């Protein structure tokens, strides 16, 4: 765990671990469902897959109460400024998961209408492949994000 983001010294280093632990254990997601992936995101939050196991079942409607944005679906040119505004309204620290092929790269729609990858608008921490990614993939992405925050790899 000798990542440059971790400050040196016993007290601060351990305080950082506590901070990371707190950040990962109660991550609130802003509802940003766009297309097919949003249905899989809802399925992940519902009873069968039960995202509540990771303390994440609360999808906040207001970006001001959220610290994770899951961009679930294709982002059109018309939606792009909306997405950026919602991202800007989220308080720090904040993370972004790009869910699915469309959000990550534009997917199969290489045309005039779609933003070819949401990382052109907001910084993305985790990309989840799939069209749409199943709930297992989404949970794997979320847990990978948790690991990265815990290890200090993603610093905020």
């Amino acid at each position, binding site marked *: 765990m000798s990542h440059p983001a971790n400050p040196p010294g016993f007290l601060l280093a351990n305080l950082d671990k506590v901070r990371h632990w707190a950040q990962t254990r109660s991550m609130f997601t802003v509802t940003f469902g766009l297309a*097919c992936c949003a249905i899989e995101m809802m*399925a992940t939050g*519902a*009873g069968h897959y039960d995202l509540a196991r990771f303390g994440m079942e609360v999808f906040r409607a207001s970006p001001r109460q959220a610290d994770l944005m899951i961009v679930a679906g*294709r982002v059109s040119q018309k939606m792009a400024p909306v997405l950026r505004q919602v991202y800007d309204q989220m308080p720090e620290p904040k993370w972004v998961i790009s869910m699915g092929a469309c959000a990550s790269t534009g997917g199969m*729609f290489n045309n005039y*209408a779609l933003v070819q990858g949401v990382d052109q608008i907001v910084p993305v921490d985790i990309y989840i492949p799939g*069209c749409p990614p199943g709930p297992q993939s989404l949970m794997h992405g979320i847990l990978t994000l948790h690991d990265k925050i815990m290890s200090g790899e993603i610093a905020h």
Partner: protein
Amino acid sequence: MTDQKRRDKRNVDVWLTGTEEPGWLVDSTDEGAQKMAAHETAGRLLDQEGLVVGDDRVLDEDVAPEDELMIINMGPQHPSTHGVLRLNIELEGEIIRRSKPIIGYLHTGMEKTGEELTWLQGPTNVTRMDYLAPFHNELAYSLAVEKLLGIDLPPRALAIRILMTELNRVSSHLVALATNGMDIGALSMMLYGFRDRERILAFFEKTTGLRMNHNYIRPGGVAADLPPDWQDDIEFILDKVPPRILEYEDLLKANPIWMGRTLDVGVITLEECLAYSVTGPTLRAAGSGWDLRKAFPYSGIENYHFEVPVGERGDVYDRYRVRVEEIWQSLSIVKQAAESMPEGDYKTDDRKVAPPPRARIDESMEALIHHFKIYTEGFQVPEGEVYVAIESPRGELGAYLVSDGGSRPLRMHMRTPSFANLQGLPVMMADSLIADTVATIASLDPVLGDVDR
């Protein structure tokens, strides 16, 4: 306003084309064209003087002066708009006087992309339109291509198509119930609806490889045969899902809170449905028995016995009832299809359209050539244009294809039910309470991928 008065004189303003000034005149902002029209625009004055005939606009002396009206914006990022629908709502106190849906936030350019894909690749594209009913999109497209080609399918392919689309109708209506419940506050309904959907999706995943966006129904048949023990899976679904549906009926059917939130809310009459080409459960809840499965049977659905549930009032409660009844009817069709599933091939034996079996490629030079041709340049479709419509869970889903004789469509257009149904939303919401907005939207069950494409 009493109910009687409301029925007699509905102040429905639908932003008729031409009564609203074009965007570049109204405002210099990008969103100018999407603002609510002021009450004293020139077009509206002409309309009031009787110089322009609107279709059902009635002048209402009850309307408050403009400074007492408030316009609020809902969406596009709102948890209850089922995606990225945006609404402008004009309020007088708590009563909605006018509303205007603004769409296009999920415009994907699929109809343009469809012109770049071969006929066989087309279902990959259209299946992502209405992502709650992917099989129906694929079926409409495939039927249109097959009509242009003039080919007939083996009975097993037809039966598999019916089996999958009717299962898909059940899963789609379960999500409609789940989200409708969630929006009104019955949050447990959301968990239950998605739980049972998982059982059906597990079968879809086993058969097609994917939970959604299957690309399973293709021109010429289906992509693969049913898995070896598919009858056990169907039996499991038919065993587990019906008791749950009964349970949900117990939860909601006579629930006073549910009835209070849905009865006589979001009413649309049969005439208004026809005027705005609203189809599907919304039309049937208004009292019409119009179902394309009965009117223009496709894929052999005329061989199955089922009824078309019809409502009376055209309100949110009736739409909920119609959906639940349709789940029962679809489960009955699934049962019949599973019992009478014919043996045989699951795709046409026309080797110009459907690829040969894998084993034949090693033996036959001709099979290898056919396989190569289908997956490189694709098959050619005779010149012509065609429109085929099927009954999707949301209404009439039509595919309009134009071919110039090549291996790609010259033009592809989908007549999507959510887009037409959304036109009825301002009619349903006029003169209702703002608290009923989400109930009305949810009962319409729009899929924004279907609206914007």
